[in-house]
């Protein structure tokens, strides 16, 4: 840094520049840093300590492999059981009338039963046209007929061993339901705007009418919950009407025409 040609400032100028420098305020430390540094100084730990890495003991390799095999086997078993437990797919077993059904907002002509069946997934919304009937079934276990403009969210078909409680929703129209021997132990809930209909093994109709829901039981027993009072069991040969205006539900004999329609249904073998 020695420079022989360097000419220093005149003494007065040097003092002036020095004064300018000395006039600078000291840089202020962050109070948080100051407090932190003070605490560390008083404890003798002023230098930032390197982060300690906690090394977890590694399990032996053969144990890792055994765990991996066990996990893979468990996944395989669970997957297999889930596949085997799955209920059958919905089938379209009968169609009456012409028109276009709508499945999840996709129009499908009623005559295209294969396309219609392929679209019937659990949770799908199925609407059938007025004056037509579409019969779907889980072979051997369950038949459901959708009539008079039924608008329904499909349930899953009851599974084999577990997951046998399924739920459908009927917004309007009519359903006629018949269960077969394999349905024993399963449970189908049909929810309408006014009622929850619990089916455990029977033949019945669930009809959404302008003033409420009518549940007609041809065989077995059905529990109807109108969501306002105690659930009621509807015995064989009776019907229960749940009003949508708050009136007390009414129970009566099923109408002859309904009896005949359900008799026709019960004579069908589920899954045929």
């Amino acid at each position, binding site marked *: *840094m*020695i*420079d022989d040609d*360097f*000419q*220093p*400032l005149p003494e007065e*100028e*040097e003092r002036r*520049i*020095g*004064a*300018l*420098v*000395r*006039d*600078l*305020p*000291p*840089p202020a*430390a*962050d109070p948080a*840093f*100051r407090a932190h*540094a*003070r605490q*560390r*100084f*008083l404890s*003798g*730990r*002023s*230098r*930032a300590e390197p982060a300690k890495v906690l090394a977890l003991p590694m399990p032996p390799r053969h144990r890792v492999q055994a765990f991996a095999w066990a996990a893979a086997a468990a996944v395989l078993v669970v997957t297999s059981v889930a596949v085997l437990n799955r209920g059958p797919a919905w089938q379209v077993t009968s169609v009456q009338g012409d028109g276009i059904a709508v499945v999840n907002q996709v129009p499908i002509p009623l005559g295209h039963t294969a396309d219609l069946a392929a679209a019937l997934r659990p949770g799908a919304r199925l609407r059938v046209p007025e004056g037509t009937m579409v019969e779907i079934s889980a072979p051997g276990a369950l038949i459901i007929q959708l009539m008079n403009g039924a608008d329904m969210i499909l349930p899953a078909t009851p599974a084999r061993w577990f997951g046998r409680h399924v739920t459908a929703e009927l917004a309007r129209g009519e359903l006629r339901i018949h269960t077969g021997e394999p349905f024993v132990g399963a449970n189908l809930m049909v929810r309408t705007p006014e009622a929850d209909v619990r089916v455990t093994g029977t033949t019945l109709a669930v009809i959404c009418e302008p003033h409420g829901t009518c549940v007609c039981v041809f065989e077995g027993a059905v529990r109807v919950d109108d969501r306002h009072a105690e659930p009621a069991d509807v015995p064989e040969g009776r019907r229960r009407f749940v009003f949508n205006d708050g009136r007390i539900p009414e129970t009566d004999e099923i109408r002859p025409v309904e009896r005949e329609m359900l008799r026709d249904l019960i004579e069908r073998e589920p899954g045929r």
Partner: protein
Amino acid sequence: MPSGPTHPPGESVQDHVAPGSSPTARRPGLPPAVLEKVRERDPAALAAFFDRYFDQVYATAHRLLGERAAAEDVTQEVFYKVHRAAHQLDPARDPAPWLAAITYNACRDLWRTAEHRLAKKSGSIEDDPALAGRLTSGVNDPERDLLADERRRLVQDAVNRLPEPLRTSVVLFEYGGMNHQEIAELIGVNHAAARKRYSRALALLATMLKETLG
């Protein structure tokens, strides 16, 4: 206390006594009794020592390094070393120059790291045309020059852009409470060279500030 800089005989007081007009330099030191307690690492004495000298250490580090994060790292390093070497403290002497020397050495270690050299390459005045223009062009705004804050900022920028050896001379002399002889011993040059560095630093500052501050 480590062997600190001393005033060599036969030299003028003017050369050895720092101006000492900065707030840090003017503050009285701790009483010898407290420093004796610091040697024993008495918690209360350590607290008093920290409170008295923290600002000086941090300010010196900040002025030498020109950035907050590095100054904080160096400050922690300095106080770590002080804690470890507390038993060497000489209660009869003001610790300020000793702390300034430790601070300078910590900064010098940082300057020598590759990371710092790399970062410093982007800190040249040439990379700040606006500042360079303000400091060296003929543009002169009398109204702005009258604002003290603006003047201080310009001076601070100029100090920050001094080459490291020159900035070290200015910072240690003006703020560190060290005289030229102590600085010379610290940085490993003779007294005349240390004095000349200081003069060169002021001359360079004057050049940079000439057009701006008049």
